[in-house]
């Protein structure tokens, strides 16, 4: 992989070529298999919905305004990531770095809120050991959180590369794949928000 800086025009063309190329397809197929993993966890969650073993169900433990805040933060992070991809096509290095920074900050805020929620649940004695329902809850939401954590690490690595190398072929490829990953995580969260939280309190 050459470390040559691409020109402004080349960066846009490269981004478009990558979006249609084999790397993007391969990454997309990874995302589809990851969705099957999430589908299994959703199925497990729904099946174990009533396995509360006399303990709390979703209604008793969910703080809805808190979850709405999490949802809006993650959605905004996904939106800013989309704006960053527009800045990439204009090869605007500063704007891409700012975009990645904001995406990271919002993603980190989301993860912090989720960990805060988890900590409070465990302190109240509603840990994953309390019931089958809570095991399924922590596994599903925690797996999503783990993906977010990996995404945050990925942002740091890419931002560093953009900062040091500018837009090389490899950096543009990683940015393109990352944006797919980040939008995908927001898609999964819509269903966690709907099926776990909203349907949990109905």
């Amino acid at each position, binding site marked *: 992989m050459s470390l040559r800086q691409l020109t402004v025009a080349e960066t846009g063309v490269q981004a478009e070529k990558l979006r249609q190329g084999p790397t993007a397809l391969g990454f*997309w197929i990874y995302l589809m298999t990851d969705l099957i993993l999430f*589908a299994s966890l959703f199925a497990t969650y729904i099946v174990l919905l009533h396995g509360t073993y006399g303990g709390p169900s979703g209604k008793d433990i969910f703080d809805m305004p808190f979850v709405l805040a999490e949802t809006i933060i993650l959605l905004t992070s996904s939106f800013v990531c989309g704006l960053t991809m527009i800045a990439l096509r204009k090869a605007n290095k500063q704007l891409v770095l700012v975009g990645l920074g904001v995406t990271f900050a919002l993603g980190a805020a989301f993860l912090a809120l989720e960990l805060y929620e988890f900590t409070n649940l465990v302190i109240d004695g509603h840990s994953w050991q309390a019931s089958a329902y809570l095991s399924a809850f922590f596994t599903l939401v925690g797996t999503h959180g783990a993906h977010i954590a990996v995404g945050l690490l990925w942002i740091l690595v890419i931002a560093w590369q953009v900062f040091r190398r500018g837009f090389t072929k490899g950096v543009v490829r990683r940015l393109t794949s990352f944006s797919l990953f980040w939008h995908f995580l927001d*898609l999964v969260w819509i269903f966690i928000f709907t099926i776990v939280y909203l349907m949990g309190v109905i």
Partner: protein
Amino acid sequence: MTKSKSTHVYSIVPAITGYVLALSLTLTAYFVVVNHWYSDFWAMVVIFALAITQLIVQLVFFLHFGKESRPRWNLTAFWFMLIFLIIIVAGSIWIMNSLNYNMMQMTPEQMDLYMQDQSGAGF
């Protein structure tokens, strides 16, 4: 060909449209549930429909779904995944509900007794 397409797809207007739509769908679903606008059954139906709508909105506006040139392998992979997803989720719910029904929904105490009874029998 791809160039004119890319300038069309990657501009700020569709991004903002997608964001505003997604945000309003999220808020609608939230208030439907929190303010009890519908009966429980209809609330479930409405928020699930809103989630599917938001899925489509984000696929189109954020992931530029279906905007690739042919032969559209992304789309093929997506439909393939969707079939698996439906089989896994619907199948699990169906089978486990049927099992629960046939086990007549024991209470935790009954389950403890049942498991103690069965503990010598190959578990």
